[in-house]
């Protein structure tokens, strides 16, 4: 027998839908207005729910931020990591940079959100523990990249530590300066590949 639903927590299926809607709207707000400028009430309203409903899922703004970060990085990181399976380190660099540029065009709000993350962590150190995966992802990515270079013989001298530091700095620098520009990306890719060819 079908009964009218009582108030309170929505049914499971609705629940997933609401959660997805909150995250989608919140991602745009965090990207556009920053952590400080984002209001729980505006996120709820734009998603078409009450602030109470939003708070049912995310107790506070920090939890909401953590959830948006998790959803966003779960979407992006695997697409980048794929390129670690490239035959050479040069291919992996070219492929992962190209992929990020492509994502920034197809899903600008994802990259806008991630682009702001380091500056939000700087301003709001309490968020750091919520997005620890960012740091571990970077460590994993850059050390895997260097291992690949060692395996293929593209890198042979100097310590891993030095190599990780160098390539991490260059690629993060490219993200900060070039991820929104085709021209910068292309030239940086070529320069890195040429550097590797010399080794």
């Amino acid at each position, binding site marked *: 027998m079908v009964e009218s639903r009582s108030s309170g927590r929505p049914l499971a299926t609705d629940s997933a839908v609401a959660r997805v809607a909150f995250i989608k709207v919140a991602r745009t707000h965090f990207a556009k207005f920053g952590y*400080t400028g984002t209001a729980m009430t505006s996120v709820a309203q734009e998603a078409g729910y009450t602030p109470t409903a939003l708070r049912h899922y995310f107790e506070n703004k920090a939890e909401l931020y953590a959830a948006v970060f998790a959803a966003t990085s779960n979407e992006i990181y695997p697409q980048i990591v794929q390129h670690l399976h490239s035959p050479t380190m040069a291919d992996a660099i070219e492929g992962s940079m190209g992929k990020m540029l492509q994502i920034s065009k197809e899903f600008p709000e994802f990259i806008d959100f991630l682009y702001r993350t380091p500056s939000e962590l700087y301003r709001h150190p309490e968020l750091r523990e919520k997005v620890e995966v960012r740091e571990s992802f970077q460590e994993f990515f850059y050390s895997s990249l260097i291992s690949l270079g060692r395996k293929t013989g593209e890198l042979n*001298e100097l310590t891993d530590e030095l190599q990780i530091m160098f390539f991490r700095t*260059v690629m*993060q*620098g490219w993200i900060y300066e*070039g991820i929104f520009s085709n021209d910068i990306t292309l*030239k940086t890719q070529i320069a890195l590949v040429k550097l590797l060819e010399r080794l």
Partner: protein
Amino acid sequence: MAKRGRPAGANSEQTKAKILNAARLEFADNGYDGASITSIAGNVGIAPSAIYHYFQSKEKLYTEVFKQTSTAIWDSVTPAEEAKTLLEAMANLLENSRKIATDLPSFSDFLASLPIEARMHPEFSDLLQQRADHQDRTFRRLACIGIESGEIDFLSEDEATELIRSIVMGWFFERHFRQEEIPKSAESILAMFEHLLNSR
């Protein structure tokens, strides 16, 4: 009897400078949207209306802080004519940038947040262009030093410029966002770069 209105002559430049300093701190701490003219005025010890007398609007104030801050920084990190090698010039640049971050933290804070502000506020897109021009001038100069000295013989000027841009800005931002320098990061990067340049 004291007249109301604009403070008299000699103080005017001083007041302007004080406002710019206080505004840089306020923008660096709270971002463009979060910055309050009232608290800037409070920190200078003047009425908020006096700020509008000098700078008309928050947008104008932000633009002026940007111009002053970026000129000061880029002038002090652009390599001197006498720099003979790229590695030496880069070492100097990183050292100067490190000094600025330590001595004048609000300069680095303000400039580090500009790309985000400009993305969120299209009215600042010409500041982003000015920032790019400052960068291009400095990094292209470094690239040319490297090409002239023979340190870089396998990249075009454009490619070398982009590579140097990514190295320097990556180092700057990683250091900035962590609020501390990864020990020996500048030395490691330069050692690795030197190794890469000298290979083969």
